[in-house]
């Protein structure tokens, strides 16, 4: 085959001409002042989170909820720095009878597309959520909802199946409750992201002016937002999505982005502490890590050859005496996790230090003598063999170091011999509820910011752990706090429940994840609070 120089030149020439001709063929509506150097208060936020869907009915994950918190209004919401909820686009919200929760909307509410936001939209929002009941969605949070009525344009009445549900106001600020536009969203199917963006169906603090799934979202402040959180302090946000935490770290470290939020590894955060271009901001996180005990299969469990509930309890208590949370938080997680001595996450109403008071040296440290005494008093001859399971692909590679540390701590005084085992996540998920693991690692991120969400799912009969824990007194106490209308009394009851479950130790809370954001030196307004909602609006530089 012969390619002459003339032909090559002709080809290059043709390409050049094509490029010049094509240059006149495209127009773009995107683009503004550049990226990291964008002036006028625009900020770039980087994350490794992923968006599943912009439709609240079709997603129940952190990545999607972060977007929803920026663009959708809520009836009730938590103000910056506060875990409790108060009216957002509502004027008032209260129980008008034990099974009726009435919300009055502010007048003149509008979506960014000009559509009026009325009680009809609110009713539509909840009705469709229940009707669609998407497997990826949060419809399960509305299990106590019987019906929704919209007697007039600004009044919404929620009828509940069980009266005085004290978690209901929190559910109205949860992933099940972003208010959507009935003129844009489908009543019986998850609405595609493109339709939502095209319909400009937003009434939160921001609108979306450019959207590329899991690549880039460009937000502009919504001038029509009338909620209680106030207007955005910046002129826009570009959210950039990274697949790899190391790329996110490099981007924030180089100053390519202004904020990195979720999820940098502990070592990345540690190394960025020495970077003069950035600062680390942290706040309480809702995520907790704990060990679950299977009451049937753990040492001396109900279905073992040496079944003895008292001895099984002694084993759990001795383990609680020996675990050194501080060491793990510091050495393994570089203080991106903090020690957890409460069943309700620290920072939430109702959080206590019950496990610090009851176990170990009383100051959060281990106590070998105490653990020895517990076992001895129960008539247990050391060492007790523990088969402890953990998972590295779901809870992160540091889980290996974390559980290696527990093994060392538990074996140090000769009371226990620990066999560590790791299993891939899908198999782990099946095995853990099939009585395969005597004791195992698990994590939890709350559905909504209420202490009950750290109690009912774990300690009620037939809880999701399926660990055969059943204490009728605890069960009754949880039902009681869920319907207690006096908030002070409710918190007292929540404290009492934690004392009860601390004695039983069906789970052993160990660590609580911090929310960590790495931001540029000139970025202000980063707010990480116990609402566990990361809001872009207060950010500025």
């Amino acid at each position, binding site marked *: 085959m012969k390619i002459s120089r003339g032909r090559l030149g002709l080809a290059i020439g043709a390409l050049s001409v094509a*490029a010049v001709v094509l240059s006149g063929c*495209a127009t*773009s*509506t995107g683009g503004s002042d550049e990226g*990291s150097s964008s002036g006028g208060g625009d900020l770039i936020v980087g994350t490794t989170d992923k968006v599943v*869907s912009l439709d609240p009915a079709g997603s129940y994950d952190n990545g999607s909820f972060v977007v929803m918190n920026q663009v959708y209004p809520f009836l009730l919401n938590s103000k910056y720095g506060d875990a409790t909820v108060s009216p957002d686009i509502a004027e008032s919200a209260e129980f008008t009878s034990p099974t009726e929760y009435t919300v009055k909307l502010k007048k003149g509410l509008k979506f960014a597309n000009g559509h009026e936001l009325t009680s009809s939209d609110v009713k539509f929002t909840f009705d469709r959520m229940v009707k669609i009941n998407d497997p990826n969605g949060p419809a399960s949070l509305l299990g106590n909802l019987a019906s929704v009525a919209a007697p007039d344009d600004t009044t919404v009445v929620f009828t509940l199946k069980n009266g005085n549900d004290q978690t209901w106001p929190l559910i109205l600020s949860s992933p099940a409750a972003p208010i959507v536009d009935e003129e844009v969203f489908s009543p019986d199917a998850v609405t595609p992201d493109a339709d939502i963006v095209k319909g400009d169906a937003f009434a939160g603090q921001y609108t979306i002016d450019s959207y590329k799934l899991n*690549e880039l979202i460009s937000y502009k402040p919504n001038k029509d937002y009338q909620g209680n959180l106030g207007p955005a302090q910046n002129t826009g946000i570009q959210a950039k999505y990274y697949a790899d935490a190391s790329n996110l770290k490099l981007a924030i470290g180089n100053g390519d982005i202004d904020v990195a939020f979720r999820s940098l590894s502990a070592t990345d955060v540690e190394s960025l502490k020495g970077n003069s271009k950035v600062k680390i901001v942290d706040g309480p996180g809702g995520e907790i890590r704990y060990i679950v005990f299977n009451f049937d299969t753990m040492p001396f469990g109900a279905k073992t050859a040496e079944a003895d509930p008292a001895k099984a309890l002694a084993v759990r208590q001795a383990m609680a005496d020996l675990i050194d949370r501080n060491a793990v938080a510091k050495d393994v997680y570089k203080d991106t996790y903090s020690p957890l001595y409460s069943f309700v996450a620290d920072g939430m109403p109702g959080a206590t230090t019950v496990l610090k008071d009851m176990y170990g040296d009383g100051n959060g440290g281990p106590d070998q003598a105490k653990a020895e005494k517990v076992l001895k008093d129960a008539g247990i001859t050391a060492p007790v063999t523990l088969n402890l399971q953990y998972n590295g692909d779901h809870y992160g590679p540091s889980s290996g170091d974390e559980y290696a540390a527990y093994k060392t701590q538990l074996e140090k005084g000769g009371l226990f011999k620990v066999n560590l085992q790791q299993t891939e996540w899908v*198999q782990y*998920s099946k095995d853990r509820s099939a009585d395969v693991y005597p004791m195992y690692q698990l994590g939890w991120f709350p559905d909504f910011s209420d202490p009950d969400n750290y109690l009912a799912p774990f300690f009620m009969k037939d809880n*999701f752990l399926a660990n055969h824990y059943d204490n009728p007194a605890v069960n009754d106490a949880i039902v009681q706090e869920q319907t207690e209308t006096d908030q002070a009394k409710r918190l007292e009851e929540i404290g009492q429940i934690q004392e009860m479950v601390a004695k039983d130790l069906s789970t052993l809370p160990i660590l609580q994840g911090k929310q960590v954001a790495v931001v540029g030196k000139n970025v202000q307004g980063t707010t990480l609070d116990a609402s566990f909602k990361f809001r872009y609006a207060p950010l500025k530089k």
Partner: protein
Amino acid sequence: MAVDAGAALAPVQPRSKSKGGGGLWRYILVRLVLIIPTVFILVTTVFFLMRITGDPITAALGGRLPADQLAQRIHEAGYDRPLIVQYGDYLAGILHGDFGTTITDRRPVTAILLQYGSATLELAIYALIVALIISIPLGLIAAYRRDRWQDATLRVMAILAYATPIFFAGLLLKLVFSVWLGWLPVSGRGNTRTELLMSGIDTPTGLYLLDAIRLGNGPAIADVLQHAILPAVALGLLTAGVFLRLIRTNVIGTLGQQYVTSGRSRGVSEYRLLTKHAYRPALIPIITVMGMQIALLLAGAVLTETTFEWKGIGFMLAEYLKSRDFVAVQGIVVMIAVVVAVTNFIVDIVAAFIDPRVRY
């Protein structure tokens, strides 16, 4: 996959001409028909392998739901049906052109193929250009300096280039040129401004460089090219190693031909002999191998795109694999299989036309 450079110099086989004159057409037909079992075997393998690794619902909700609720969700999604039934449904869908909708982000697989396929195509083109730029001159030098230190060095470099794991080469390039020197971007196809520009184009091609040229936006063109350098080099090196050895071998072969010796005796300069007389005939096998390298490039694209967050088909494949999204993975693999099979088919046909040594 490495290609044996020596294969290009395989003994020339006599062409077996069909008496009826339909030999070439039969050859084309056979090659075309062979695409079907190739794709079918791959689809079947991927389908059953994906099912063995678990279902996406357990992967997402295994730590939150009781076993009975989890089982109910799996049942509702139909993942507890007999595998053969699921397989039959899937094949029926493919035959109707329906690759399904992804489980994790509810996008039609065809839309994903279109959106991200262009990114991979762009990367493959860049990589091919890099491979040619590196391999042609170095291959010529290696051939011209045969068995001297330059040749030995280049041969070692070529082996290193295609033997080095692509993710390692990528990480190394990133470490040096992005982190230490700060010359080139760490990841992505463009900076935030470019990405915004691209997402605002009315009729995008998906090829960022072409779209930036169409916009006539100089900074965007420069930015796109800057972002392309490291991924293109990482992926291109892999192919460059193969090309370099192939060019060297073929040019050595042609340098020994009678017409080259005659040219030399007539006083044609060594440079001209090398770059014109010996080099051009040696290019034919390169064109053939170039087609076969598409499979190598697509395989390499998964690692390159993941390393540099180049959001193409390879990147998406890795993402969907992590979330065990059956539908997406199957769709992407089928697409890759079809592309590779069709490309190889075209290469075979082109080779049959231009190379008299090809038998049919």
